[in-house]
C-alpha cells in the first residue's frame, strides 16, 4: 500500500489591537456594539472619502515582524483587491499585494512531544477586514462594524507535515502575537483566523499534490482536526484513483468534516492595483529598531531561560499560556533564584485556572509575596499542603503569605518542647502500643503511623521531620 505524506501551509489573519480602524477614525472594538454603529463614512464607502492610514497599525505590524523573526521593508505599499460583495463597501479591499511591510521570517514552534517544527514565513501583509452579512430567508442584512478593521495576514511556507505540526504552529503564532502586543488574541471573537492549505502526495514524491484550502478556522484544535480530516479525505480520493480538486473548503466543527465551497474554476480575478490614495509607508532602520525595542520578551526567550531547570514541559507550557505569569516567574527567578522560581512555578502550573479572568488578575501580581511564600516552605514554616492553601488565597488577596498563614493557623510548629509534649502524649496512648512494638521489632514503617497521629493532634502544624526525630530518640 502506498504511504502518503501531507504538506501544510497556513495563512493566519491577526486582528490588530489598534484603537481605531485601519483607514478611519471609527472605534476598532466592535464587540457587543449595535450593527453599523461604529462605521465612519470612510468605512461606508461614501463618495469623496479617502483612506487615512492608521500609523498604530503600522507600528503593530513592525512589532509582529520582530515576533516572526522577519525583516521589515523600508518601503511598503498598499494595493486594491477588487470584488463585489455587499460587505465590501468600496468594491475593493485595501491590502498589500506587491510590497508587504513584513518580509520573510521564521517561527520555531514547540510540539507536544518535545520536538520543534520550523516554519518559514513567506511574508505578512497589512490589510483591512470586510463587514459581515447575515442571511434571512429572501434577504440579507449588512453590518459594517468590522469593515476596515486592521489585520495582518501571516503567510507561511508549506513547511508543516502533520496535523500536530499545524496545531503547534498555530498555537505558537498566537503566543507570539499576544506577547508582542500585536493583538488581543481573543479567538472566540475571531481575533485570529487560520486558513489551512493542505495537499497530499505519495511519500518521497518530489511533486506536491493539488491543495485544498480550509478557510476560517478559529481554534488550534480545529486546525489540527481539519488537517486530520483533509488528509484522510484526500488519501481516500487518491486511493480510489480520483483527483483532488484545487478548491476552498469550509470546516464544520460539529460534524468534524470539511465541505467544498468554491473551486479554482470560479476563482475571481481581483484586478490588483496600487492604491493611489495612500502614499508608500517609509520606515527607516532606526524607526524600526525603536519600535521593536519596545517589544517585551517573547516565549522563546522564556523557554531558553527555563530550559535547564528540570521543569516539566507541561509546567512551562501552563506558565507560558499567560504572558503575565511568564513575566512574574522570570522576575521571581531573577530576584530569588532558580529554586524559589521552581517552587512557585509548580504552584502556578497546578493551582491556577487558565481562564481569562484569572489572567487579568494575574497582571496585578507582585513577586514579593510569592517569594516569601516559597521561603516559608524552605524554612519548614509551612507544609507543602498548607503552602498551596496560602498560595490560592494570595492570588486574590492583598495580605502577605505570613498573614494568611497565621489567620488560617497554618504555621508549622518547630518548637521542640511543644512537639515533644505531643510525642510523649501519643506514645503513651494505648492505641500506639502496636506501632511502638513494631518499631522496636525493626519494622520502621510503623513510624509513619505515629507521625500521622502527631500531625493529627497538632492539627497539621507539627514539623513532621522533627516529630520523627523525637520519636526515635524516645524508642
Amino acid at each position, binding site marked *: 500500500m502506498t504511504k502518503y505524506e501531507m504538506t501544510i501551509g497556513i495563512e493566519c489573519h491577526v486582528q490588530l489591537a489598534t484603537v481605531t480602524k485601519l483607514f478611519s477614525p471609527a472605534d476598532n472594538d466592535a464587540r457587543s456594539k449595535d450593527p453599523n454603529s461604529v462605521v465612519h463614512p470612510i468605512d461606508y464607502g461614501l463618495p*469623496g472619502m479617502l483612506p487615512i492610514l492608521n500609523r498604530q497599525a503600522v507600528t503593530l505590524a513592525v512589532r509582529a515582524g520582530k515576533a516572526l523573526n522577519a525583516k521589515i521593508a523600508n518601503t511598503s505599499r498598499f494595493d486594491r483587491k477588487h470584488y463585489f460583495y455587499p460587505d465590501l463597501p468600496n468594491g475593493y479591499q485595501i491590502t498589500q499585494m506587491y510590497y508587504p511591510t513584513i518580509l520573510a521570517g521564521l517561527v520555531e514552534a514547540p510540539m507536544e512531544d518535545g520536538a520543534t517544527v520550523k516554519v518559514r514565513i513567506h511574508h505578512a501583509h497589512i490589510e483591512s477586514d470586510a463587514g459581515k452579512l447575515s442571511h434571512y430567508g429572501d434577504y440579507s442584512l449588512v453590518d459594517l462594524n468590522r469593515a476596515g478593521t486592521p489585520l495582518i495576514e501571516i503567510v507561511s511556507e508549506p513547511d508543516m507535515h502533520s496535523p500536530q505540526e499545524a496545531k503547534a504552529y498555530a498555537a505558537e503564532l498566537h503566543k507570539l502575537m499576544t506577547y508582542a502586543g500585536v493583538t488581543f488574541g481573543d479567538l472566540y471573537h475571531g481575533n485570529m483566523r487560520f486558513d489551512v492549505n493542505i495537499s497530499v502526495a505519495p511519500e518521497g514524491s518530489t511533486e506536491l499534490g493539488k491543495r485544498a484550502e480550509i478557510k476560517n478556522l478559529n481554534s488550534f484544535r480545529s486546525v489540527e482536526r481539519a488537517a486530520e480530516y483533509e488528509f484522510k479525505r484526500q488519501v481516500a480520493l487518491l486511493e480510489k484513483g480520483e483527483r483532488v480538486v484545487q478548491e476552498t473548503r469550509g470546516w464544520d466543527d460539529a460534524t468534524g468534516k470539511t465541505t467544498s465551497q468554491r473551486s479554482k474554476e470560479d476563482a475571481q480575478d481581483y*484586478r490588483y492595483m496600487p492604491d493611489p490614495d495612500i502614499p508608500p509607508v517609509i520606515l527607516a532602520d532606526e524607526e524600526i529598531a525603536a519600535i521593536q525595542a519596545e517589544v517585551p520578551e517573547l516565549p522563546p526567550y522564556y523557554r531558553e531561560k527555563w530550559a535547564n531547570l528540570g521543569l516539566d514541559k507541561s509546567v512551562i507550557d501552563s506558565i507560558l499560556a499567560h504572558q503575565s505569569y511568564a513575566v512574574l516567574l522570570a522576575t521571581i527567578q531573577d530576584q530569588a533564584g532558580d529554586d524559589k522560581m521552581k517552587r512557585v512555578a509548580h504552584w502556578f502550573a497546578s493551582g491556577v485556572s487558565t481562564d481569562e479572568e484569572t489572567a487579568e488578575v494575574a497582571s496585578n501580581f507582585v513577586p514579593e509575596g510569592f517569594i516569601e511564600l516559597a521561603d516559608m516552605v524552605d524554612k519548614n514554616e509551612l507544609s507543602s499542603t498548607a503552602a498551596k492553601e496560602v498560595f490560592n488565597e494570595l492570588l486574590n488577596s492583598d495580605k502577605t503569605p505570613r498573614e494568611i498563614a497565621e489567620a488560617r493557623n497554618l504555621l508549622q510548629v518547630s518548637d521542640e518542647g511543644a512537639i515533644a509534649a505531643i510525642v510523649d502524649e501519643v506514645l503513651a496512648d494505648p492505641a500506639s502500643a502496636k506501632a511502638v512494638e513494631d518499631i522496636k521489632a525493626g519494622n520502621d514503617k510503623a513510624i509513619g503511623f505515629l507521625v500521622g497521629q502527631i500531625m493529627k493532634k497538632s492539627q497539621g502544624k507539627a514539623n513532621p521531620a522533627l516529630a520523627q526525630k523525637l520519636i526515635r530518640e524516645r524508642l
Partner: protein
Amino acid sequence: MTAISDFIDSSATDNVKKAIAAAKENESIHALLSLTEERALERATLVDKGEITGRLAGVPFVAKDNFMTLGGTTTAASHFLEQFEAPLQATVIERLEAEGAICIGKTNLDAFAHGGSTENSAFGPTLNSADPTRVAGGSSGGSAVATALGIVPFAIGTDTGGSIRQPASFNGVVGVKPTYGTVSRYGVVAMASSTDTIGCFATTAHDAELVMDIMAGRDDRDMTTLPDFFAPAEAPTALKVGVIKEFMTDDVDAGVRQQVATYVESLKAAGHIVEEVSMSMLKYALAMYYIIVPAEISSNLSRYDGVRYGRRAEAGNLSELYGKSRDEGFMAENKRRIMIGSYVLSSGYFDAYYLQAQKARTLLINEFNELFKTYDVLVGPVAPTPAFKLGENTADPVKMYLADIMTVPASLAGLPAISVPAGTTDEGLPVGVQLIGQRRDDAKLLALAASQEEAA
C-alpha cells in the same frame, strides 16, 4: 464677465440674488444643474450680519457637481447619484465658506467627469458661452461657462486630464490645474485618484490666485496633499520659456496656433527668453493616460453598487441588483472606461498595459524634469481646436480622446498647468494658451499670467 472685486463691499444678500437671477436668465445654456438658493441666502445673511468675514465675504461662486455640498444634491451629473444628498462638505467648500464665499449652485459636467465636452452629462450638455451650437468643453464645462457668462466671478472644478484647462480655453476664462496634491480631494467624487486635482476658473489670474491661495494646503483627510507651499508670487522677469514644438504642428487648428503665437510674442516683448523645445515622450502620453486613468476609474466606481446609497434598481437577487443599478446609473462613457480599466487590470494584462504605462509615465516625468532644469515655463495650446460643434465627436470616442492630447501630459506628471485666455479665432471662438510649470511652481505661472494680462 465679473471679477471678485465687483462683489466685495456690497451686500452679500444682493450678490447672491444677483448671481441667482443671472443663473436663471441663462438657464437655456444649462451651465447649472441645481441652485442652492436657500442655503446661499442663509449664508449671505450671516455675512451681512458680520458673523462670517474673510477674503471672499459675500462673493458668490458655483461648484462642479462632483463636489459634496450641503443644501442640495451632489449628482456628479449621473443618474446614479441623481437624488444623492451629501451628509458633509468637501474640504475646499469648507475653506471657501470659511472665507465668506457663498456657493449658489452646482454646475454641469460629463457624468463622473468622464469626457471633454460636458455632452456625457446625464442631464444634457452645457452650451458654449461664445457659440451655443458648440460644446462647453469638459468635463468642468458648467463651471467654465458660468464664469464666462458672468453669473459668478469664480467657479471650482476638477482637472484629471484637462477638465479645467480645456473648458477654460473654450470659453475664454482663466483655468487653473494645480500641482498634484496642492488641494485636498476630500469630499470630491473621485475619478482617477493619481491625477485628480482641484482647481478653479476665474476671469483674471489675480482672482484665480486668491481662490487657489484659499483652497490650497495640507489636509489631514487626504494623505496625498502636500505640505503648504502655495503663496502668491511676484511678477517674474526674464524667464526661460520653452514652446513645445509637438503642440504647434500643422495638425493643430491654424487659428489656435495663431493666437498662441501671438501670446508667445507678448512674452518676448515682456523680456522673457523664448525657445522651441521638443519632447519625445509626448506622443505616448495619450496612450498612457487612457490606460492608467480608466484603471483607476474602474476601481473608484466599484463602490456604486446600489447597496448603500444612490441608484438601487429593482432586482430579484444580488447580481441583478449590481448589474441593473450600474446599468441604469452609468452613462455609456462611464461603462466604456470601466471596461477598459477592468481589462487593463485583469490578470495577464496588468503587466503588459498598466505596469508598462506606469513605466512610460516615469519616463515622461523624467523628460519634464530634464526640461525644467533649463526652462521655467513650457508653453503651448490647451487643445488642438477651439470649441467643436455639439455632437461632432460623440460618435467617435477616440476622436474625443484625441482632444485631450495637450492636457494629459501635465496631468500624468502631476505638474501645475493653467489655461490663459489668448483672444479668439477669426470665427470669434476663444482660444487658451497653456502654461506648464515645474511641480510647486503654481504661483509663478499665475504671476506670469497676471503680468501678461496687465501688459495687454
